[in-house]
C-alpha cells in the first residue's frame, strides 16, 4: 500500500490580524478544547486528571500549566489547552473518570482582542457590563455578540479571549473590524 499523504489542518482565519493605535485583533492559534460536564459529586475525581480543582464560582476560570478551565454553568466547563496535540491525552485522562468529555477543539475557534479600546469595541456588540469591577481579569461568560453566541474570557485588563463556533467567526471578525472604526 502506498504511503498515505497526511492531511493538512487549515484552521479558520489562520494568521489573520488587525491592529491600530487602540486595538489589536488576532486569530488565536489552534488549541485543544473539551466540553466538560460533571455533577457536583464528580468534581473531586476530576482534580487528578486536570491537575487542579475546577472553579466552582460563576464566571470564574483557572489556568495551570497551559490548561484552562472556564466555568460556564453549574455542571459545565470549557477546557482549553494551548497545545493542539494535547487533546488525545486529555480525553484519555478524562475517559477514566466519571464525567462527560467531548472534543470540541475544531468546533470552536478563538479571537484575541487587546488594547485600550478593547472594552469599547466589545461593547459594540456585547451587552455585558465589561467594566473591571463587573468583569475582572480571569472572568468568563457565555454571552452574545450581535446576533451570535460567544464565550468571552478576560485575560488581562486590556485583553480578551473570544471563543466562537467556527462558522460564526467570519461574522465576528467582520463585526469587530466594523466596531474598531468607532474606537481609537
Amino acid at each position, binding site marked *: 500500500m502506498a504511503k498515505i499523504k497526511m492531511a493538512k489542518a487549515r484552521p479558520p482565519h489562520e494568521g489573520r490580524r488587525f491592529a491600530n493605535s487602540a486595538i489589536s485583533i488576532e486569530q488565536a492559534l489552534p488549541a485543544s478544547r473539551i466540553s466538560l460536564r460533571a455533577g457536583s459529586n464528580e468534581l473531586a475525581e476530576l482534580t487528578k486528571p486536570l491537575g487542579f480543582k475546577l472553579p466552582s464560582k460563576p464566571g470564574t476560570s483557572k489556568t495551570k500549566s497551559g490548561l484552562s478551565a472556564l466555568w460556564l454553568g453549574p455542571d459545565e466547563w470549557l477546557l482549553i489547552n494551548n497545545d493542539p496535540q494535547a487533546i488525545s491525552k486529555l480525553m484519555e485522562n478524562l475517559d477514566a473518570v466519571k464525567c462527560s468529555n467531548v472534543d470540541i477543539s*475544531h*468546533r470552536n475557534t478563538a479571537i484575541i482582542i487587546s488594547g485600550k479600546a478593547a472594552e469599547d469595541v466589545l461593547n459594540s456588540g456585547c451587552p455585558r457590563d465589561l467594566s473591571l469591577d463587573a468583569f475582572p481579569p480571569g472572568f468568563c461568560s457565555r454571552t452574545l455578540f450581535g446576533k*451570535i453566541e460567544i464565550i468571552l474570557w478576560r485575560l488581562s485588563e486590556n485583553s480578551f479571549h473570544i471563543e466562537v463556533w467556527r462558522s460564526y467567526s467570519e*461574522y465576528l471578525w467582520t463585526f469587530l473590524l466594523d*466596531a474598531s472604526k*468607532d474606537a481609537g
Partner: protein
Amino acid sequence: MSAQNRIKGHGQLSLAKTINFTFDGTTYQGLEGDTLASALLANGVHLAGRSFKYHRPRGILSAGPEEPNALVNIARDSTRSQPNIRATVQELYDGLTAESQNRWPSLAFDFSAINDGLAPFFPAGFYYKTFKWPPKAWDKLYEPIIRAAAGLGKSPAEADPDRYANRYAHCDVLIAGGGIAGLTAALAAAKAGKKIILCDENPNFGGAILYDNALEIDGLSATEWVEKAVAELAALENVRLLTRTTAFGYYAQNFVALAERVTEHMAEPDPALPRERLWQVRAKEVILATGAIERHLVFADNDRPGIMLASAAQKYLNQYGVAIGANVGVFTACDSAWAAAFDLKKAGVNIAAIVDLRDNPPLELQEKAQTCGIRILRGYTVTKTSGRLRVQSISVQPINGGTVEQIRVDALLNSAGWTPSVHLFSQSRGKLKWHQDRDLFLPDIYVQDCISIGACNGTFDENELIAEAQAAGNATRKKAKAIRIENQSSWAGNAIGAAPGAGPSDNVKAFVDFQNDVTAKDIRLAVREGMHSIEHVKRFTTTGMATDQGKLSNMHGLAIAAEQLGKNLPDVGLTTFRAPYTPVTFSTIANHARGPLFDPTRKTPMHQWAVDKGAVFEDVGPWKRAWYFPKAGEDMHAAVNRECVAVRKKAGIFDATTLGKIEITGPDAAEFLNRLYTNPWTKLGVGRCRYGIMCREDGFIYDDGVIGRITDDRFHVTTTTGGAPRVMNHMEDYLQTEFTDLDVHLTSTSEQWAVIAVQGPLAREIIEPLVEGIDLSHEAMPHMSVREGKICGVPTRLFRMSFTGEMGFEINVPADYGESVWQAVYAQGEPRGLTPYGTEAMHVLRAEKGYIIVGQDTDGTVTPHDAGLSWAIGKAKPDFVGKRGMRRPDLVAEGRRQLVGLRTKNPKVVLEEGAQIVATPGQTVPPAIPPAIPMKMIGFVTSSYWSEALGHSIALALVEDGHSLEGDTLYVPMEDRTIEVEVSGCVFYDLDGGRLNGKN
C-alpha cells in the same frame, strides 16, 4: 444676504464667525452656533413650511425638539438627503442646504393651499366618510390620490452611505437632561463616587437657564455656572458626558436607549466617525431631568408665521442674538412670557401690548411693564389675527365681551404655560397623577428605579429644584452644599384648551395640532360623532399623531375633549407616550447590522473548494450549501442529471457538514434516546447506526437523522441542517424538566466535524487507500455501521450509510482537516469518475428512494404512520415523546393525508411542488369563471423531480388515505391543463435496496 435681525450685544454667538447656508435656493449668512431656525430668523425668514393637510403657510413656532412647523429637507448630496428635519434643532454648518416641504411650486405660492379654502369639505375623519362610494373608485381613484398626497417629505431612494455605531453601557446613574436640575444631580452623584452618564439632546448643557439672563446662581450668571459645572464634571473619570444625545426610549429594567448625533453638525463630517451612535444603557438608577415644554395658546388663526412660543423668542434673543420682530405682541396666560417681553423690550424691540387672559397677573410684572412703557391688557383674549405669509395684526377683546381692537404687530409671542416632559417617565410604565390646581400631569407612581427632578416633576422653583436634584444625585449622603439662587423668573400661570374666542360657539380655525392641522373644532366634532375616549379622538382627528407626537397639542386636545364631554380632564384618559421621544433614524437602530452583518452567513470548511469548482449555492437557514456544480454550458437541469447519474453509476462526493450533530454521553444515553426518538435504541450495538425519528408530544414528526453508537455510553446523533438548534433545545428541555432521572449530557458537535459523503458503487474503492485501522469490507463494515480510525492520517468517525440509495460512506473528520481530506478523496476518486454533487442532486437521489426530508415532505402535522414510517416506531417501548399523541382520535382516524409516490401518466411531465391534487377529472383551479365544479383538494405534491436514472418524473405527495390508493389515478389541475397521475409507493428506485449493500 446680511442678517438684519441680529442684535449687537445680545446672544452668545460670535458675530465674527459667519457661515453660509441656503434655504430654498437663496443663500443666507448665519453664525457658528446657530440652528437653522435661528439663522433664518436672523435673516427675517419666518415662513418655513406648509401645513400637512391645508397647506397653510407656517412659521417657526419653537426653538426646540417640539417644533411642529419648520420641517425641512436637508441634503448633503443625493445619497445623504433627509426629510422632516426640525430647523429648530438642526445646527447650522457651512454650506448647509435646506429645502422646504409640502409645497408646489414654491413656499410662498403653494397650489395645494386651495385645500385651506376647501376646509369645510375636509372635516375630522373625512377619510372615513368621504371615500365610500362608489366602491370601485377606491382602487382606481381615491387610493392613488390619497397616496400621492400622503406623507410629508420625500424619503431618499438610495442606500445610506454613512456608518452607524452601537455601544452598550452600564452605569450607576443615568441622567437624562443636562439643564440646571440634571447638572446639579450629576455634581452631587459624581461627588458620591457613582459612575454616571449624563446626556442632553442639545449641543451644550444648560437647558432653559442658558437663555435666562436675569438668573444668578452662586453669584454667577447662568451661563458661567453651567460652564463651571460642566468643566467640573468633565474632569471626573466616573462621568461620561454626552451632548447631542437624546434619551428616546425607556424600557424594562432601567434599559434606556440614547441616540447620539455625532457628525450631523459638521460641515465636513470626519469619515472616521459614525454619523450617529446608538447607546443602549443599563442603569442602576435613572434620574429624569427632562424639563418642560411651553404650550401655545389655542386661538383663531394662531398658526400664522411670526406667531411663536414666548420662550422660543426669548431663547432666540438671549442665545442667538436674534430679534424675532420689531413690533411684537404678547398673548399669554403664564408669567414667563412677561420675562420674554421685558428682554425683547430691553433689546430695543417695541412691545405692542401684553395681552393676558388672567384678570390679575402678578403685580410686580405689571409694575415692571409699566416702568418699561408696555401696554397691558388684562382679562383680554386674541380673537383673530391677520397676515398671509406673516402675521400683521391681532384683534383683541375683553374676555367678557366688549370692543374689539386691532393692534398691528409683526410677531406675536404666546404662552399657555408649561407641560412637564413626562415622556420617559411614562415609557418606564410610571403612573401620572393629575394636579387640578396646577393643570399638570405629574409623575406619581414609579415602577422602576428612577426619579424625576426639576421641571419634568413640576418643580418650577429653582430653590426647590436644586434641593430635589441634590437629593436625587446623592440620596445616601448628608446634605449637600447649598446653592444660592437669585432673580429667578416665574413660570406660574396656565391655560389649557381653547382660549376665549375659540370656544364651542365660534367657527374659527384655532389650531391644537399644527403638524396634523387639527383644530379645536375638529376635536369637538370628533366628540359629537361619538369618540368619547381620548384614544378614539386621537385616531379620528389624528391629533398628536404626527412626528412631533403631540408635544404641544396633547394637553389642549385632552382639555377640549373633556370640556365637550362635560367630564373632568383625567376622566377622559391620557394617550400613551411611546418611544421614540423624537424621531430616530432607522440606520441608528440597525447600526452595525447591515450588509454582511445583517445576519451571520455560515460556511463549511470545504466552501472555498466548491466556489473554485464553480458551484451555485443555495441558502439553507444561515448556511451556504453547494446547490449544483455546473460545467461550462450546462444549465441546472443538465448539471443535476449528470451529478445524479454519476452517483448511480460511479460515485459522487457531497458536503454534508451542515447536518446538525449532537454528542450524547452518559450511562443513560441509550435510555434517553429511547424516550426522545420513536425507535428502540437499547439493543443497538456499538459500531452500529440506526435511522431515528423524533416526534413532538403531539405525535407529529419533528426531526430525523442517523444515530451511531460510538461506545456503550456515547452516541453520535445527526439532525437535519435546519433542525440542529431546535433539536438541541428540545432535548435539553426534556432532559432538564422531564427526564431528570437520567445521567446524560448533550454537547453540540455540529461544527466539530466536517462531513464528506462519498456515495456510489465505487465509494469503497475510492476511499479505501486513504483509510487506516478500519476494515471497509462489506462483511466487516456493513450498511449502517460506524467505525473510528484514521483517514489521511487524521482521526475519523467513518459512517457507512446512505441518503442516496447507493452504497456510501460519510467521512467525519475534525473540521480543520475537512478541506484537506476532501481534496485527497477527490484526487483519489476523480480519475474513476468521482463527481461532486450538490443539494439538488441529493434531493433527487433521496426522492428516488422515497427518503423524506423533514420540513419538505412533512409540515408539522405528519405522523410517522402518515409518512409510511410505522416500522420505525418501537411498539414495545413503554413510552417515548409522542407515543400518547399518536393515539389521539384524529391521528388514528381515516382520511389523514399520507405520503405516497406519484407517477405522471406522461412520463416527461414534472409536477410542480405544492400543486394540489383532486380525485376526479374536470375540477379546475380557481378563480376559473363559473360554472366549474368546485375544486376539492385531497392532497398536494411535496417533492417533485425529473429522474434521469429512471427516465421519468417522480413525485412524493401527501394525499388523503393515500396508502390505500396505490394504483389509482388522481388529477393535478393546473392553470392551463390537468395532469393525470398514478399513485405508487414512495420508493421508485432499487425497490429491494440491494444497491445499499453493493449489489444489483
